[in-house]
C-alpha cells in the first residue's frame, strides 16, 4: 500500500515530469499528506492534500489546467493492482492547495485467522502508532530531482483493535487488525456461549439432585 501510494506523488505533481540532463539539482520542500481510511468491509477512502508555493502552483496549473481527469487516469495507471472509484478533486486557488479523494476497493481483506490484512509491500517502514486505530508513516522521497516530504495517516475503522504491523515470509510489512465485523465471536455468539454454559450448569445441577 505504502509503496504504491508513494508513486502518487509523481502523478499529482506534474512539475518535474520532463527529462533533465542534470538531475543532481534538488528542488526542496514539497509536502504531501495522505489520509487513508479503511471502512469496515475493507475498502479505503484515500485523501491526498498538497500545498504548493507560487512557482509550483503556476507550473501545476499550466500542466493540468482544468483537466482534472488526468489525475484519475494517471492514478489508475500507477496503481494497476487496485480498483479505484469515486474520484473527487477540489482546490483552493487562493491557498494554492488541492485535495483529491478516491476510494480503493478491496484494499484490506480477511485472512484465515479472521483478521483484516493489508500488504504494505515495503520492508521496514518507519511507522508511528498514535493509537490503536491510527498510524502515521513519514518519509522523504526523492523523485526526478524533487524532494517530497510525505506523511501518510492511516485511520482504522471504528471497532478496530489489536492493530499491528507484522512481517510476512518475504520480510515485507503487513498491517493486521481485527474488528467485530471480522471477528468470529460476535455479541450473539457470546450470548450463545453464556446460554450454553448456563444450560449446562443447570443440567449438571439437576442431574446431581436426587429425585424424590
Amino acid at each position, binding site marked *: 500500500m505504502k509503496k*504504491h501510494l508513494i*508513486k502518487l506523488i509523481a502523478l499529482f505533481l506534474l512539475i518535474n*515530469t*520532463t*527529462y*533533465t*540532463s*542534470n*538531475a*543532481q539539482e534538488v528542488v526542496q520542500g514539497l509536502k504531501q499528506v495522505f489520509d487513508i481510511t479503511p471502512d469496515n*468491509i*475493507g*475498502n479505503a477512502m484515500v485523501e491526498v492534500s498538497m500545498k504548493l508555493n507560487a512557482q509550483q502552483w503556476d507550473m501545476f496549473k499550466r500542466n493540468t489546467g482544468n483537466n482534472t481527469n*488526468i489525475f484519475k*487516469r494517471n492514478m489508475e*495507471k*500507477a*496503481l*494497476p*493492482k*487496485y*480498483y479505484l472509484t469515486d474520484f473527487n478533486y477540489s482546490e483552493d486557488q487562493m491557498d494554492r492547495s488541492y485535495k483529491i479523494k478516491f476510494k480503493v*476497493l*478491496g484494499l484490506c*481483506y*480477511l*485472512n*484465515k485467522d*479472521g483478521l483484516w490484512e493489508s500488504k504494505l*509491500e515495503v520492508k521496514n517502514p518507519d511507522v508511528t502508532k498514535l493509537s490503536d486505530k491510527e498510524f502515521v508513516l513519514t518519509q522523504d522521497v526523492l523523485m526526478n530531482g524533487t524532494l517530497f516530504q510525505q506523511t501518510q495517516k492511516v485511520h482504522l475503522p471504528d471497532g478496530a483493535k489489536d492493530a499491528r504491523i507484522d512481517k510476512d515470509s518475504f520480510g515485507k510489512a503487513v498491517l493486521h487488525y481485527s474488528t467485530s*465485523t*471480522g471477528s468470529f465471536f*460476535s455479541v*450473539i*455468539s457470546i*450470548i*450463545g*456461549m*453464556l*446460554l*450454553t*454454559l*448456563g*444450560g*449446562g*450448569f*443447570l*443440567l449438571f445441577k*439437576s*442431574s446431581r*439432585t436426587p429425585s424424590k
Partner: protein
Amino acid sequence: MQKKLLPIALIVVGLLAIFYKPLLNMVSSAKLELKIQQPPVIMPSIYKVYANENALDGKYSLFKMLVTNTSSNTAKNVQVSYQISNTLDWKVATTFPAILPGQSVVVNCYPSLPEKLVEKTTSSKEQVSIKVTGTNLKTIEENFPIEVKGRNDFMYSFLPSEEIRNPGEYFDNMPLLSCLVTPQDPILKYFTQKIQEKVLKGETASVTNKDEEGVRFMMGIYNATLLSHMVYSGTSGIPQKIDDISSITQSIRLPREVITGKTGLCIELSLLYASVMACAGMEPVVYLIPGHAYPGFKMNGHYYAIESTAIGGEGIGGRSSAEKALKAGMDNLKEFFQKASTGDDRYMIVDIRESIKKGAEAMELKDDSYLRQKIDEIAQSFDDGYVPKRDTYADNNPDPRNGGGGNGGGNTGGKSTSSYNHFEGIVDFSYPGSWNMIPRNSAFMPQQKYVFGSRNNEIFVSVYQFNGYGSPDQAMYAIQQFVYNNSGGGVQYQQAGTTNSGYTIYNGQTLYQSSGLNWMAAFKPTGNGVVGIAVGANMATGSKYQNTVMNIINSLK
C-alpha cells in the same frame, strides 16, 4: 424430565446462537459478482513479468478481477483458479477464507507461464478459463479469448484507444523492451567476449567507469557490426486492432538472431547494443524518438549515443565509420533532450538496468553449439589482416578499428545465402559458406589481400590487388616469380579466354617438391591496376572440387 427441559433448551438456543452464522451459511448461499479486466494479448517474451507480481508495479497480470459479495451471507473459502488452453493447466490464483456481505476483494493473477513459451514463433488464439468456488457458493465459471503471440512479437501499448491521451502513450509498453535485452544469453556473452578480445583488444569500461572507455566500447560494438557485415534493414510495425485496443505490433528479433542473421532494424540494433553493454557491466539506454530508436549508455551522470544504423549497407547508400556514427548519435541526443525538455513525450529513454530492476527481465535462452559456430565464423572478420576497405562506403570512412586511414584491403559485403558467402569489394564473387578466412601470414604475397579456405585446407580462393599493373598477364607473371623466389615452386599456366565482365581466365598448376595445386585464375585491369582471384585445389583431390572452382569463377562480377 421436566426439570431437564429448560437446561436442554438453553443449551440448544446457546449453540444455535454460537453457530448461527455457519449454520445459516449451510442453508443459505452467498452470491458473488465478478468484474474482469484482461490484456489484449499474451507476449511470450515477457513471461517473467507475468509471473512477478512486483514487476512494473504489477501492471502486467493475466487478469485483474474484482469480486464483490452482493448477498447478505458471508462467502466462505472462496477459491479462484484459472487455466490457459494449450498453455497452462489449472492453477489456484488465490483463496479468501471469507468475503463479507458487501465486501470486495481484488484478484490479480500472475501466472508462471512455461519457459517453452519462448520457443513459440507464431500467434495462436487461446482461451483463459476462470473458476470461482466456495463452501457456500455455486461455482462460477468465466472465459475470455486471448491471443498468444510469437516470442518476437512486441505490442507497443495495451491501452484502449479511448484512453490514449498523447502520442507517447501509443508506446506505453516501452519499459518491456528490456525483456528483449539478453545479457545472460550464452550466445550473446560469447559474442561480447569476441568483441572484447578481437575488436577492442581488452576493455575496462565497467571497471574504470571512465566515459572515454565507455565510448570506446560502444564504438567497438559498432565496428564489430561493421566488420561482420551486418546491414540495416527497415520495416514498419503492423497496426493491429484487438477489441478496443489499437496498437503497433512489431516483430523484433532477439539480439542473438540479429548477430547471426547479420541484419537488424533500428530497434533491434539498439537492443543488441544494450545487451552487449549490459553484458559488459555498463548501463545501457535506448533512445526512442518518432519513427526511430538508437542505443547509448549513461556513465557518471552523462548520456552518450551512437547511430547504430549508420552501418547501412551498400544497397542503401553506404556505411559510416564509428566516429561518424558516434557524432550522428550525439547530434541526435542533443535534439532528443531539447524535445524532451519541452514535454514532447514521444521522446523516451528506456533505462535498461532500471527496467530490469523493476522486474522487466529477459527470457531464458539456451546455449546452442550451431550459433556459437556462427559467432566463430563472424569473429573471423574481427581478426587482424581482415581489414575492410571503405571504397564502397559513402563517406570514405577510415578503418573502424584503428580510427584512421583507409587502406588497400578489400571490402566485404554482408550478403550471404545458406550455402555461399558473398564477397564484395576489390572484386565481387561468392564462395562456400562453410569456408573460413585464413589470417595473413608471411607466406602471403603482398598483393594477396585475402584468402578463404575450406576447413580441410584442400581448396582455397585468394583475392589479389596489383596496384599500378597494366595487364592481367603482368599480374600472372608476378605471381609466378613470387612462388619461384619464395618457395622454389614452379608455376605453369595458359590463358583460357575472357568473361563478359572483362576478366581474363587462366588455367594453371603450381608444383612444389612433394605436392601441387590445380587452379584457375581470373584477372582484369582497373583504373589503378589489376584485380582478380585465383581458386586452387590440392592436386591429390583430383576433380573433386572442379564444380566448386567453376562456381566461384562464374560468380565473379
